[in-house]
Structures are given as structure tokens and as C-alpha cells.
């Protein structure tokens, strides 16, 4: 180790700023060794340290009486009654997925599952939130194909159902796709495992796959913008092995059923470095590691490489004294490596030795507590004007509906979710395609509802309203299947935080999310931040993706979006003024109109109404008064109704109420806080709506014939609509490389009977 002057810096600071480097020197009292510099670099990367976002994340509400463990552990934990806990988190794998879509997405799924089973939970459901570039961008098709195959390839093999998700397309994602994966697990509330090291002298045990040279500095890569050479970063992407993960889950859960484990932590970003630093840091203790004992895939790896490798499917645990044999026996059964690689110490230091030589000797506490935290300059996103309805072209509603339902953002996602095993484990009560997925909790009558949501175009237009809307829509989607929303995980995807306008988007989104979480009693229990989603100065539409979890005390009472019975009344819950600003109607159908050149204010979220309307809907479902329910979101009322018709294979016959705004605004406005219900008898619902001051309007009836009728005119037949809705994505994905998507759509139409 060099003992030269403090101000002398190496040429390559591995992503640290000069100031951060100097801070590391001050902590050590000397220049860092190569291994130590690598450790500082990953621990203080944006990805691991949250240095730009921490200040703002702290303002989010994280408490409720059902929260067992909020942010800070591997995943959030909530109480779901009967001594059971749901453990969940969402995490991004954006940068690796863009570089290598299959492996990037696959290892994203693997990583988030480890975060959940690390805490003692069996993963019971996976979800995702995906955003891709413009369909006409030549790379988009390849990314969609690779990411979907990667998510399926990993989750299907491990045997955790992928029960839902969301997918958007927008040109701002051309250079940075977003792949956010979420896992929900189930544990006994009194058998939750944490990561704080304890018991000096206890063994530090490495289990799982062997360590190789893959993914070295992956966390650093994910903390920088892309440039034109981003393809060259492929070696920083790890390769997943879902088979090993499956064995690791079974082995860990088997070991967790004994009393051998003191603490456990998965090796995710920054591998052995972050897992050992976090365990030691949380326990206020030291850890000494002997690199020679780490199971390695290849020979000649240096301490630096071993500490920074992001090889997948590995865990670190602290065992009680004398219980090593219990672990060895279980891991031998599954033919996984299990090795004592160090011990817990009282020194408060991370000491890494190789061949008896000290490669790193660094105090843990200052590395964690003195990690950089920035109050980055930020600029409030300018307020947008409200789009007045009379400026928006009127399009014949049947034609508008068909075009919207076959647009990239509203067409059927069947092509995607049929590649995911959404049924394994045998508890999937609501499959993909509805408002929220519902899985039964084995051995009980309870169910968990899960959804992922965000509307990036709203967030871009107004970060505060967009952040609020993402939380509210998630709450609404859980409500629409009859669940009580309990808590969220957030996955904050933004551009370069060093730019004040991007930081302003982040700050605004957090403010909106905070307001919604407080109003809806819907705290944040875990999350992840992905910044620098930018290529050559072009930032993504900001996407604070929300993963929501809710509880159904009686899962048999859940309702889906599909109409069930002809003759049922169709009821609109909630009111709106017909808000077309930032709507899909304007974006998809008014492209050549002057209004398309302006970013308009998105629909406001009235949290009081949200809570009141949702409460009414949930009570109606709970009271078994409702046969189908759907929230109104992208595309507005007519799209919601069409989705209910398609899912139920039944038509509808509705009338425009007398006092509505302009008809196109009524049909396609994206006003928030609204639902469509179907009910055999509307009277009890109307009566309770009246009692609590909720606007409820009977629009018409579910129709036996397969047509969608508005004011006595058939808009379109169900089969024509189905062809348009189901056709776009398969046609796009099977088209020749480079073929613009508009051509695909036309070609597909030409094949219609």
C-alpha cells in the first residue's frame, strides 16, 4: 500500500469524484489499495449509496400499524394477519437489460427474488414494469423479445409465477429501456431474517454458486450515463442460472427452518463487498474475510476481482457457533457450495486477506455513515397549461376506440404474458390482463393483490401530479379487485441527477408520492433508485414505478374486469370534467394537430375523492354486489368499457348521460379516481353512493350480443375490436427487422376478414 501524500490521486478513480476520493483517504488515513479503492467505488456508487436521492427518499412515509419492516433491509415486510407476513420489493435492471436484454432481465428477476427469500420468505409471485423505446426504433423489437424471454426464462425455471405487470412504449426510452422486477414472498411473521451481523467469533459463511470474473463493477456501470460505446459494457453484465437459484431458495428455506442462522444477506450489486459491509455496518461489528476460501469458478482471481464480482446466485450468512455442519449438510444435498470464508470481529473493520496478505483493512462505520450525500441543485418543472376541450379534434368514437385499442400502449399484452408461467404453484386466482393480479395464500382463504403502475407522460408533464397519480392508480387497481391496499415498493427511474431539471422531476415526484401515500394510508416499505437513464444527453420520461400490495380477507370475493352476465347494469363511479390533456387520445390520435406540439397539464388527482370512491367500490365488492369492476385509466371510459367487454366476451349498450362535457372528452378523458362497475342490481350501490356523496351514474347494460353500442349506434363489433386489440403486438414482434410499426399495423388490417 502506498503511503504517499494525501493529495496525490491515481489516474483512475473508478467513478469516484476527486472529492469522494479525498474523503476515502481521510477515512483510511492513507491512500487506498486497489482493492480498497474498488470497495469505496462500488459502495459509494449512486446505485449502492443513493447519494443523490437519499435526502428526498427520507421524506416518504414508511409507517403504518401493519408495517413490520420498512426501507433499509433487503425488502419491506408487512403483517397480513394470522401470524403471516408479505415481503416484497421492486428493483431495476435497466442498464444491463439495454446492453444484454436476455441476461440483464433474467438476472434482474433473480436478484429481486434473492432480496425476498433472504428475509425468510418463499417467493410466491413476480411482477414487472417495462418501458421500451418507440416501436419504429430498430432496437426496440430486439429489446422487447430479449427482455420478455429473459424474465420468462428465469422466473419460469425457478417456479415462481409471473402474474402481471405493465409495458409502455415511448421514444424517450430508445437509448435506455426500463426493466423493473418485483417479487412478493410469504413468511411467518415471527421467522423473518435480517442482515445485521452479531456474535463476534461467529462464522461468515458463503453459499450458492461459485465466484467468477463476471459483473465486475456492474454497480459502477449502472451509475453512469450511456454513450455511443455502451455496447462495450457487455462484460459488466452478469449471466444468470435460474436452476442454481431454485436450489438456493430450497436450501436457504430448509436452513432457515432450523435455528442455525444469525443473519443473512444476498450478494447483489457489488457482490461480496456490499453484503459484508452491510452486515458488519448494521451490526456495528467487523468482518474478516479470507479470499482463498471463497469458492471460485476460475483460478488466479485477485482479491479485487473477488470482492467486486457480481456473479449471481450467491448468499452470505452468519451462523451460530457450531452450526456450520447443519448448513453444510443441507447445501451438500442440493450440491451447492458452502464455505466458511471468515468471521465476525469486534474491530469494526472490514479486513480482506489473500495468501495471508492484507488486501483491505477499512473501518466499516465511517464508510457507511460518511458516504457522500448530495443536495443536488434542482429546478421545479414549469407548470403546464390546461388543454381546453374545444381545441381537441372530434373523431368518430368507434374509429377512435379501435385505433386506441390497437395502439402500442393499449393493445393486448398477451404476447408477453403467455411467455411467463403465471400459473405455477397453483394459486393464481386472477391472471395477467386485469387491474391487479391476485394470488391465494396457500392453506388460507386470503389472497394478495399485486399491481405495478406508473404513467410516465403524466410525470414528465407534472412530476408532482404524476407521482401522486402513480401511487393513486396502484391503490385504485388493488381496490378494483376488492383488496385493501396495504403498502408499496417504489422504483424510481430517472435521468442524470446532476442536471437540475432532472433532479426537479425527482423532487416533484417524491412530493406527489408522499402526499398520496399519506392521504391513502399506503406507506412505502422498500424501493430502489435508478438514475442516469440517459444516452447522449437524452433523458427518459421519468418513471417512479409503484408496486402495490393489498390483502383480500376472502379471496373468493374478488372480481375481475370481464363482464359476467348480460343485463347487468353498468355504473360509472366518480366524476370528471373530461380531461384530455396528456391523454392517449391526444397522443395517439391527434399527432398532426397543433395541440400535439405542446405538453399539457395531466389530469389532477383529488386524493379525498380517490379515497371516498375507492372505499365505496371496495365495500360493494366485499358485499358481493358487483359482478365486474375496472378502474378508468389510460384511454378513459370507453377504453375501460371495451376492455371489460373483451375480457367477458359480452357487449354493452350505453347512453351518454345528459349533463356531460363534450362527448369525446366524456368518452376518452382520463380524469382520475373513477371506476366502472357491473351489477345485477344497481340500487344498493347507488344508495350507498348517495349516502357518502359519491357520484354514481348508470350508463346502460351489459349486452348479450357481441357489439358495443353507444346512444343506439353500434360502435364496433366485439370480434373486430378483438382482432385489432390482439393483433398489434404479435404482428409487430413477428415483423421483419426494421419494418416501421405503422406498416405492420396496416398489413395486419389488410388480413382482417
Amino acid at each position: 500500500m502506498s503511503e504517499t501524500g494525501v493529495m496525490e490521486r491515481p489516474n483512475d478513480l473508478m467513478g469516484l469524484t476527486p472529492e469522494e476520493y479525498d474523503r476515502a483517504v481521510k477515512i483510511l488515513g492513507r491512500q487506498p489499495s486497489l482493492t480498497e479503492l474498488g470497495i469505496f467505488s462500488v459502495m459509494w456508487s449512486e446505485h449502492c449509496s443513493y447519494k443523490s436521492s437519499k435526502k428526498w427518499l427520507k421524506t416518504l412515509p414508511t409507517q403504518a400499524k401493519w408495517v413490520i419492516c420498512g426501507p433499509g433491509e433487503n425488502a419491506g415486510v408487512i403483517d397480513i394477519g394470522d401470524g403471516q407476513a408479505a415481503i416484497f420489493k421492486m428493483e431495476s435492471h435497466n442498464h444491463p437489460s439495454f446492453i444484454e436484454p436476455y441476461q440483464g432481465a433474467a438476472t434482474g428477476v433473480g436478484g429481486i427474488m434473492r432480496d425476498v427469500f433472504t428475509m425468510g420468505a418463499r417467493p410466491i409471485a413476480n411482477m414487472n414494469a417495462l418501458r421500451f423505446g418507440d416501436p419504429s426504433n430498430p432496437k426496440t423489437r430486439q429489446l422487447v423479445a430479449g427482455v420478455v424471454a429473459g424474465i420468462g426464462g428465469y422466473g419460469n425455471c425457478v417456479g415462481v409465477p409471473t402474474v402481471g405487470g405493465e409495458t409502455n412504449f415511448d421514444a424517450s426510452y430508445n437509448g435506455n429501456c426500463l426493466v423493473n422486477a418485483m417479487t412478493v414472498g410469504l413468511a411467518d411473521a415471527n421467522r423473518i431474517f435480517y442482515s445485521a451481523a452479531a456474535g463476534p467469533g461467529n462464522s461468515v459463511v458463503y453459499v450458492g454458486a461459485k465466484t467468477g470474473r463476471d459483473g465486475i463493477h456492474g454497480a459502477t456501470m449502472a451509475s453512469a450515463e450511456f454513450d455511443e460505446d455502451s455496447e462495450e459494457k457487455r462484460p459488466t453484465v452478469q449471466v444468470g442460472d435460474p436452476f442454481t437459484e431454485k436450489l438456493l431458495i430450497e436450501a436457504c428455506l430448509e436452513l432457515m427452518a432450523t435455528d442455525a442462522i444469525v443473519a443473512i444477506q444476498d450478494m447483489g450489486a457489488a457482490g461480496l463487498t456490499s453484503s459484508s459491509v452491510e452486515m458488519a455496518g448494521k451490526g456495528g461489528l467487523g468482518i474478516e474475510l479470507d479470499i482463498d476460501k471463497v469458492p471460485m469458478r476460475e483460478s488466479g482471481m485477485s482479491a479485487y476481482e473477488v470482492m467486486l464480482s457480481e456473479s449471481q446466485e450467491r448468499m452470505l450468512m452468519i451462523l451460530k457457533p457450531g452450526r456450520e455442519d447443519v448448513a453444510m449438510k443441507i447445501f451438500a444435498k442440493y450440491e451447492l457450495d458452502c464455505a466458511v470464508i471468515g468471521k465476525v470481529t469486534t474491530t469494526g473493520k472490514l479486513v480482506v486477506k489473500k495468501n495471508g496478505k492484507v488486501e483491505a483493512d477499512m473501518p466499516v462505520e465511517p464508510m457507511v455513515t460518511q458516504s457522500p450525500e448530495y443536495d443536488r441543485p434542482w429546478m421545479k418543472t414549469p407548470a403546464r397549461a390546461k388543454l381546453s376541450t374545444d381545441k381537441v379534434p372530434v373523431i368518430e368514437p368507434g374509429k377512435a376506440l379501435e385505433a386506441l385499442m390497437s395502439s402500442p400502449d393499449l393493445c393486448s399484452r398477451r404476447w408477453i404474458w403467455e411467455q411467463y408461467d403465471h400459473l405455477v404453484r397453483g394459486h393464481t386466482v386472477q391472471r395477467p390482463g386485469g387491474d391487479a393480479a391476485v394470488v391465494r395464500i396457500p392453506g388460507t382463504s386470503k389472497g394478495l393483490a399485486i399491481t405495478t403502475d406508473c404513467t410516465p407522460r403524466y410525470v414528465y408533464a407534472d412530476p408532482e401530479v404524476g407521482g401522486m397519480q402513480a401511487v393513486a392508480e396502484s391503490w385504485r387497481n388493488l381496490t378494483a379487485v376488492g383488496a385493501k391496499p396495504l403498502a408499496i415498493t417504489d422504483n424510481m427511474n430517472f435521468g442524470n441527477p446532476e442536471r437540475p431539471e432532472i433532479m426537479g422531476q425527482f423532487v416533484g415526484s417524491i412530493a406527489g408520492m408522499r402526499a398520496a401515500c399519506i392521504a391513502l394510508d399506503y406507506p412505502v416499505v422498500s424501493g430502489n433508485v435508478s438514475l442516469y437513464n440517459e444516452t447522449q444527453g437524452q433523458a427518459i420520461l421519468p418513471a417512479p414505478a409503484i408496486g402495490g400490495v393489498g390483502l383480500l380477507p376472502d379471496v373468493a370475493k374478488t372480481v375481475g374486469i370481464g363482464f359476467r352476465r348480460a343485463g347487468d347494469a353498468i355504473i360509472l363511479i366518480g366524476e370528471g370534467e373530461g380531461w384530455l390533456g396528456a391523454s392517449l387520445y391526444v397522443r395517439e390520435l391527434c399527432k398532426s394537430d397543433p395541440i400535439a406540439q405542446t405538453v399539457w397539464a395531466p389530469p389532477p388527482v383529488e386524493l379525498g375523492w380517490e379515497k371516498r370512491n375507492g372505499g365505496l367500490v371496495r365495500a360493494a365488492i366485499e358485499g358481493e354486489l358487483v359482478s365486474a369492476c375496472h378502474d378508468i385509466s389510460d384511454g378513459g371510459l370507453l377504453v375501460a368499457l371495451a376492455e371489460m367487454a373483451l375480457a367477458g366476451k359480452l357487449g354493452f349498450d350505453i347512453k351518454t348521460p345528459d349533463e356531460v362535457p363534450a362527448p369525446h372528452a366524456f368518452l376518452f378523458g382520463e380524469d382520475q379516481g373513477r371506476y366502472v362497475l357491473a351489477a345485477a342490481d344497481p340500487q344498493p350501490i347507488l344508495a350507498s353512493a348517495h349516502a357518502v356523496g359519491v357520484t354514481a351514474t348508470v350508463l346502460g347494460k351489459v349486452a348479450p350480443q357481441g357489439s358495443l353500442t353507444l346512444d343506439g349506434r353500434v360502435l364496433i363489433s366485439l370480434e373486430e375490436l378483438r382482432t385489432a386489440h390482439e393483433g398489434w403486438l404479435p404482428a409487430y414482434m413477428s415483423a421483419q427487422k426494421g419494418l416501421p410499426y405503422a406498416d405492420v399495423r396496416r398489413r395486419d388490417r389488410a388480413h382482417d376478414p
Partner: protein
Amino acid sequence: MKSAVIVFPGSNREQDIADAIERATGKQPLHIWHRDTELPSDVDLVVLPGGFSYGDYLRTGAIAARSPIMSEVKRRAERGTPIIGVCNGFQILCEAGLLPGVLLMNASLKFICRNVSLKVETSQSLFTQRYFTGQVLSVPVAHHEGNYFADPTTLDRLEDRGQVAFRYCDEQGNVTAAANCNGSARNIAGIFNATKNVLGMMPHPENATDPLLGSTDGSGLFAALAEVVA
């Protein structure tokens, strides 16, 4: 009745099928680890569950077919013990030589998870006796390699001897190319061995045994087994 579900490294639908058996019989089957070499003597139904044994590495089912327990499974098959392999279990039975043919990658080259319609080809077996010949069942598939392949002579022999158990069909029971979800030869979704005590099938009847989950069309198969092996 005592049934045993063989668990290979990478099996992932062992609990699904164990639960379906429990729904039909009131009893959870034994879970037998693939390294065991013998089954308890009173086991009268052997189940090879779905999943990704050995991660589907090398070839689906190829490594699991050589697991220690498989010698015992073969002995039981010869002795006439009913054996059912679903999805990966079917692939393992083919690789182990207990059933003819092989499962190739789906014609679409993609994983497929969806409900399909299945035509019961014969009610003349201990597995299908609760159905009527020609009955159409709605049962999910979830696989990447379900494209059944065998040479024409083998296929003819299977047809002649009534060894085809199920075929992919449309909702009306028509066996069409459009209804063939994975490109299987002659739409074959499941087959018996010559003595009809071994059934391999790609679809998952165990995921169609609970009204809450959308279909109970798979229950007949488990009810039949409960009856036969009682």
C-alpha cells in the same frame, strides 16, 4: 392409497400436483428425493412432476432420467404400478425410455402458458376412465419444449393401440392445426405406454382442479386415480 411425488433438483410443480392428489384422496403424497434408490413398498402411484429438472440443461429431462430413483421407477413401471409424468415428468419418461418419442422445442420457439382445449382420445385407461371418449377439457399448458415428435411408424403404432391419451383441439373438439399450440405430431398432448399404466402429458391437469382458479376439468383424472389405486 399411497402415492409418491418424485422431486428432482429443479422440479417446481411438485406441490401443485401433490395438492391435486390431496383434493382427490384427502392425503398428501410422499415427496421422494431423486437420490433415493427405492420407493416404500406400499406406494401404488408414482408421480413425476413438472418443472425444470437440472435447469433443462443438456436436453429437457435427459439428466433427471438418469437419477438414482429412476431405476426404481422403471421397475415399478414393469410391475404395473400407475405412473404419471406431467410436463417435465413427460419429458423425463421419454428420456428414460418408458414412453416413446421426444419433446422438442415449441414450434413458436417461445414458452407458452395458456389454457388449451384437450380432446380425451380414449376413456379406456385407468387415468381417463372418468372422462368420456371425445370429451373436451380446458387445461393449462406451461412449457417451452412440448412439441411431441416420433417417427411415423411409432405414431401409427401409438394410434393403432389406443395409446394416444389426449390431443390439442379447439373448443368444439376439432383437432386442427390452429389448435396445435406447440406443433406436436398429430396434435398429440399425452400418450400411454403399451400396457397403459404409464401416462405422460404436457398439459397440467393439476392446475385445473380448483373452481377458484378457473377450471376443474383436470379433477376427473385425479378422481380416477384415487379410485383405481385405493
